[in-house]
């Protein structure tokens, strides 16, 4: 999975138009970044790289780019 595909998947999880989400967007500014979206992200990261992630690592992320990096994308 490349960064563009990751962005598109994250936009869907966050119920945003895919053009409306950018890698530099801050998670705290995204209204739908909640526990449901976090579960979706865990599933996405698991499918993309199979890397075992802990929710603590996810909570330390500040931007969409941090999430991509944590998932081993790009």
């Amino acid at each position, binding site marked *: 999975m490349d960064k563009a595909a990751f962005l598109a998947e994250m936009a869907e999880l966050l119920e945003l138009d895919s053009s409306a989400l950018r890698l530099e967007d801050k998670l705290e500014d995204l209204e739908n970044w*909640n*526990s449901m979206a976090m*579960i979706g992200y*865990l*599933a996405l990261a*698991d*499918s993309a790289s199979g890397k*075992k992630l802990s*929710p603590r690592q996810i909570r330390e992320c500040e931007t969409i780019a941090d999430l991509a990096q944590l998932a081993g994308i790009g």
Partner: protein
Amino acid sequence: MKNARIVAIEYHLPGEILDTARLSAEHPGWNADKLDQASGIRQRRIAAAGECASDLAVAAAEKLFATGLLHREEVDFLLFCTQSPDFLVPTTACLIQHRLGLPSSCGAVDYSLGHSGYVYGLGLAAGLIASGQANTLLLLTGETYSRYIHPEDKSSRVIFGDAGTATLIRATDEAGTMGPFVYGTDGSGAENIMVPAGGARLPRTQATALAQTDENGNTRSENDLRMKGAEVFSFTLAAVPASVQQLLERAGCEMSEIDAFVFHQSNRYILEHLRKKCGIPREKFLVALEECGNTVSNSIPLALKLCRERGQLMPDQLLALVGYGAGFSWGAALVRW
């Protein structure tokens, strides 16, 4: 050495229905339609005031007796899995022995496990039979998690339903009817599915009854169930595929030899991800939670029975069962039913 065999399963669901429409009406802000679409749960059944987990299990057991497959005096061991006992003391299984009119020569014990409980119960039953301690067992599950859920806790209220089940297990000379088993435990995850107050560690007080709202808008007190969804899902992703792999290795069989996989019915979104991750074909992966939600230790026997009623399972098929959840605790077993 005798083996154990599941002979029959019955279930009982309480009457009150909490469906998508009622959730939407009570909580317009929850977007219950969307949540229920993702979870695959259209309704949950909720125990009435005063209706205990044991009542649900007893009703299921009475259905077993009504089939004529067994007589009360045959039962020599009763196992009851619950995290909602009638009393702190005595053991609920003892009360159930009396209510069901089982002989006084019958052993009876409660064990406390959540979503992995049914697999552990089968394992205990198999051990009691293999060691010659019992021949005819009733494995009952009963749970009323709804009692532990704060009405404003979206994360748990949309998922859990109450239920009771009864499984008749008999000794047999046949081989390959139950087992092997795989077990796992990681108590470091205990706090992720927990009712913090009400036990000996933290008795209920006015302070523990104070409700607070978390960053996701879920309200609960320490007297209520809390479930940290992301932590639970993360644990599941690691534990479940590994236990399926271990089970197949221990059994010395290929995935293609298994007729169907019945996982704990947590919710459809998570089940579908696990199915893909484990590489299980869709037609061999059973999901049955639309009408009852996640019923904790009841979910596997309930799914087995519902799928048999729907014609999705045939007698004498080889089934892989996987339970996982509170503890963290997990278990997997092969059964022929």
